[in-house]
């Protein structure tokens, strides 16, 4: 009996793997951001998510604005080269369309949290956070004393998402995956997760080695979906270029609640939930708000 295929349609894979309340990491450092999978979450209305990502970027701005996100774990929340992520700001500052709890780190801290998760360790050690206010607002940074030198170093808790979603250039029919160019933290994010969904530009007969390529063997991947252009407005080296005009244009769309809601309605007419309609939207006050008022 052949093994069941890992190649799935995107709607099926998202419905099977990602459920309400899950912790989901959708990684890709500017390059290879899995936008199509995020848009499928909007269509399916999967909600109460804890989203993890070093740079929330426009992809999470859209999910936050759509009211699907309960908590965000991140390290830099801007629109690169353009300015603010307005839906992210509106959620944190004003609780619209629902309060957003945040767990905020530095890039080095986030990268090492994934490394710990991928390594099966409870935490990672780094030189970081000393003297900053970051550690005062999170329970996932502490210190550890080196048993050999006595030096006190930062410790960050491992990240182990329920599901990590990444976009890659290619997979073969067995579900072996290859990505290249800026590969960011995707290998660590994938290996830290219990399940891994990969969208790819194309399915090829045979993966040819690329310089700097990262290969995830099929047995480390849960499902693969062929989605050409699935990283747009981010890009896939060798297939597309970054749509910088979309990133610039997002500023005006996202700045205004009505403009954003119109964008959502236009692009996702069949989505199952409206912004702010989540059952648990008012269930709890976000930690960020409590901490802010306690300062």
């Amino acid at each position, binding site marked *: 009996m052949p093994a069941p295929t890992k190649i799935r349609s995107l709607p099926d894979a998202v419905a099977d793997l990602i459920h309400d309340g899950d912790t989901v990491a959708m990684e890709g450092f500017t390059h290879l951001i899995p936008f199509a999978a995020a848009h499928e979450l909007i269509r399916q209305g999967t909600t109460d998510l804890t989203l993890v990502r070093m740079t929330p970027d426009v992809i999470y701005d859209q999910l936050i604005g759509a009211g699907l996100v309960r908590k965000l774990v991140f390290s830099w929340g801007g629109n690169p080269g353009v300015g*603010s992520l307005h839906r*992210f700001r509106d959620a944190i500052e*004003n609780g619209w369309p629902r309060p957003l709890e945040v767990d905020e780190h530095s*890039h*080095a801290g986030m990268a090492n949290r994934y*490394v710990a998760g991928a390594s099966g360790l409870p935490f990672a050690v780094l030189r970081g956070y000393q*003297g*900053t206010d970051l550690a005062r607002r999170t329970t996932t940074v502490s210190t550890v004393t080196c048993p050999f030198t006595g030096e006190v170093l930062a410790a960050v808790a491992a990240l182990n998402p329920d599901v990590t979603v990444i976009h890659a250039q290619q997979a073969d029919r067995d579900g072996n995956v290859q990505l290249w160019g800026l590969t960011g933290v995707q290998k660590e994010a994938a290996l830290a997760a219990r399940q891994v969904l990969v969208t790819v530009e194309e399915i090829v007969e045979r993966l040819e080695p690329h310089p*700097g390529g990262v290969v995830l063997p099929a047995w480390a991947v849960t499902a693969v979906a062929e989605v050409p252009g699935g990283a747009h407005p981010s890009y896939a080296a060798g297939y597309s270029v970054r749509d910088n005009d979309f990133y610039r244009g997002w500023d005006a769309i996202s700045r205004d609640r009505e403009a954003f809601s119109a964008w959502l309605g236009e692009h996702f007419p069949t989505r199952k939930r409206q912004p702010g309609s989540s059952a648990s939207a008012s269930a709890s006050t976000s930690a960020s*708000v409590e901490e802010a008022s306690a300062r």
Partner: protein
Amino acid sequence: MSEWTNDELMTVNAARALSTARTCFVGIGLPSAAANLARRTVRPDLVLIYESGALGAKPTRLPLSIGDGELAETADAVVSVPEMFNYWLQAGRIDVGFLGAAQLDRYANINTTVIDRGPGRPEGRLPGAGGAPEIAANCREVLMVLRHSTRGFVDRLDFVTSVGHGAGPGDRERLGLRGRGPTAVITDLGILRPDPDTAELVLTDLHPGVTVEQVRAATGWPLKTAATIGTTAPPTGAELDALRALKAAEAQTSI
């Protein structure tokens, strides 16, 4: 009328500050413009390092994001983000970290996280830390570039995202921060540098035509001045041509 803008003065002087650097960890925005200008003027062999994973990027135009494709295509090596932060930055291999900031205090500590908007109002949200805390901690030295205003140059930070000289001399050593910390803050009015004895930023250089009073008025603490204040050399034709060509190439890509 002047033949250049204050922003051009800032970027040209920021590029000059890299004239002896070998490697530079580049933040997006003003630092990236300055570092790319340095490669076209005072330091053609400057190694540009972008946190997205590009070591030795040689972009032909200013990237919009730190992950634009051209950075990887022109790099000496492309590495993962954990490798970048752990092996290259944390291990102390990088000469200069070049940072911008939303708020900066007299010890060159910076805030890029939240702005206190007063009682009863929610904090204003900024993008957050990104790579800055560890860039500020681990590069051999740190340069900063930002426009001079009382909103940016504040008496007290609302949040410490990245440590410059902490609360004064000896603080970096006490905190275990191994780099020298900020050595210059280049603005559109002049240059501030830490006093060797107190670590407090003092005005050391004015751009041509700028007065001490102008700088003091744009600084949110009682700014001290160095014993002698220099004047930065006016931009050369070559510097202005290179900067304007960079900006024009950036503008073209947005059409």
